[in-house]
């Protein structure tokens, strides 16, 4: 590489480093602010004194969460949801991607199924027919209303199908010669060699289930069954109202709700995502490139 050190080149470098750093900080600061808020004394948080460092540090907000029974119930509901929803997603992704990855010679009906999947991706009834369907199926207020409608992630099926197609033919033929049937070939050859892709897809679907709030808001009526994001959303609705309140109104509200308490709940809610994020990041760049730039 030829090094030229003209002032213009140095300028490019300085501007790039600055812009990149500013953008990075912009992503970090709101989260640090929220963390600081959650660790601040209630009155300091309410008065807007907190910026990036806790003012009059206190763990009372987190202690208050320990006493919030609904928070724990909702947390548990969300865990159940990601386990059940995630398991369904993996099951259907693998079992559908494998047959679809076979050639037309081995699986003559393949294209009919493929068109069916594409059709379901292109057309949707929208929220009202969906709501009426869930109602008719008597799934209201049940965890199944949260996991069944999204149980077959069609986009992921296509991603994994493409990945399966990249598996070397020799592996497939070797399994065939050894007398392995299609199920064994799928489970003992294709699934193990496709773990990076399956891991990415699974983490994505788990994060998706964890983050979903709207279905919980419209299908679940019993407060004890509400998932965590929906519970947090109920608090955000209060914030939504408070975002247009005057200072006097807010002073009254601060007595009851408390910014630091809400901030602590927000922090605990995003914690699981932040915990799986390093694993997610390791794989997803691979996954997204796989999905989007495939020629």
């Amino acid at each position, binding site marked *: 590489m030829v090094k030229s050190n003209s002032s213009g080149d140095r300028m490019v470098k300085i501007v790039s480093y600055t812009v990149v750093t500013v953008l990075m900080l912009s*992503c970090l600061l709101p989260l640090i602010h929220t963390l600081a808020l959650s660790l601040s004394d209630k009155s300091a948080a309410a008065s807007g004194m907190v910026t990036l460092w806790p003012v009059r540090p206190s763990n009372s907000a987190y202690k208050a969460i320990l006493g919030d029974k609904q928070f724990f119930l909702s947390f548990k509901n969300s865990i159940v949801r990601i386990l059940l929803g995630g398991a369904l997603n993996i099951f259907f992704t693998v079992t559908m991607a494998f047959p679809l990855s076979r050639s037309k010679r081995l699986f003559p009906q393949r294209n009919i199924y493929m068109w069916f999947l594409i059709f379901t991706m292109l057309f*949707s009834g929208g929220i009202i*027919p969906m709501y009426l369907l869930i109602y008719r199926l008597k799934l209201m207020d049940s965890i199944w209303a949260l996991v069944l409608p999204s149980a077959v992630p*069609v986009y992921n099926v296509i991603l994994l199908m493409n990945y399966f197609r990249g598996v070397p033919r020799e592996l497939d033929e070797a399994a065939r010669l050894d007398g392995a049937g299609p199920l064994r070939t799928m489970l003992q050859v294709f699934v193990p060699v496709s773990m990076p892709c399956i891991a990415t897809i699974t983490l994505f679907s788990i994060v998706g289930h964890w983050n979903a709030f709207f279905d919980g808001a419209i299908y679940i009526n019993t407060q004890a069954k509400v998932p965590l994001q929906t519970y947090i959303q109920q608090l955000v609705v209060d914030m939504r109202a408070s975002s247009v309140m005057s200072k006097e109104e807010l002073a009254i509200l601060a007595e009851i709700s408390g910014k630091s308490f809400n901030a602590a709940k927000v922090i605990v809610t995003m914690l699981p995502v932040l915990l799986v994020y390093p694993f997610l990041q390791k794989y997803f760049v691979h996954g997204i490139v796989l999905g989007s730039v495939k020629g």
Partner: protein
Amino acid sequence: MMTNSNRSSGSLPKKRSNSERLTYNLLMWPGVILLFIFSIVPLFGLVIAFQNYIPAKGIAGSEWVGLDNFILIFSLPDSWRVLGNTLYIAIAKMSIGIVVPLIFAIMLNEVSSKRYKQVVQTVVYMPYFLSWVILGGIFLSMLSIDGVINRIIEMLGEEPVMFMADGKWARAIIILTDCWKNFGYGAIIYLAALTSIDLDLYEAAAIDGASRFRQILHVTVPALVPTVVLVATLNLGGVLNAGFDQIYNMYNPLVYDTIDIIDTFVYRMGLVDMQFSLGTAVGLFKSVVSFVLIVLSYVLAKKFTGYRIF
């Protein structure tokens, strides 16, 4: 070897291939049934857009009204307002959502420290994985009259602003926070394209005396053009998706004028006011237009860049 391949075209594999087909079909069916219930059946539910649907009477018992719901909707000023807002917000988000990740990717490419690059990437991808419930909560708290932003404004000696009570501010905030959440993730596709640039090109340009800035202009940017075209055309299908999750979590009645969009309108009309037929009619209108746009965008993407998903 010979005997093996001869055997595999014999009678035993024939039997096996039949059972193999059966296995494949059986593997497909559970998923197909679920998709049928949750993707196809709701499509039949769309007929209530042409009815005066009353839940107690069901679809069979409700009265058919032809296109009355559509005529009513297009006569409401609110419908035109939400259509305008949707287009405004979606197009603004898309344009900024192309430009910012692009500039970010080009500049990140100029960062020579590999470690720093990784740190930056780790941080900027993160917001993509946080829900709008969480982020809405964070931003609303920061932007409220007693929030940290107004505290800073006051320290600078200015009057505090009630951001989410002002239509123009609220719209700008919706567009900017969406960019904030997605720009890092959106840059991945450009960064992937950058890795495929032949480094010799930079070297050749440098030997020819091109400054780093000119190298960016004549090597980096041209390498990204196909990706930009692809992203822009594929975005076309989302012109009526202005971001329900975000707006649902951040809006309030004071700013319906500028940030109420089709999806939030459908939600309030259908599930809050229980106007099932009217809500479905708006939703159907949106789906039909979106479908046409998606097909168009894929046709264009294929024509311009040879891109195929299936």
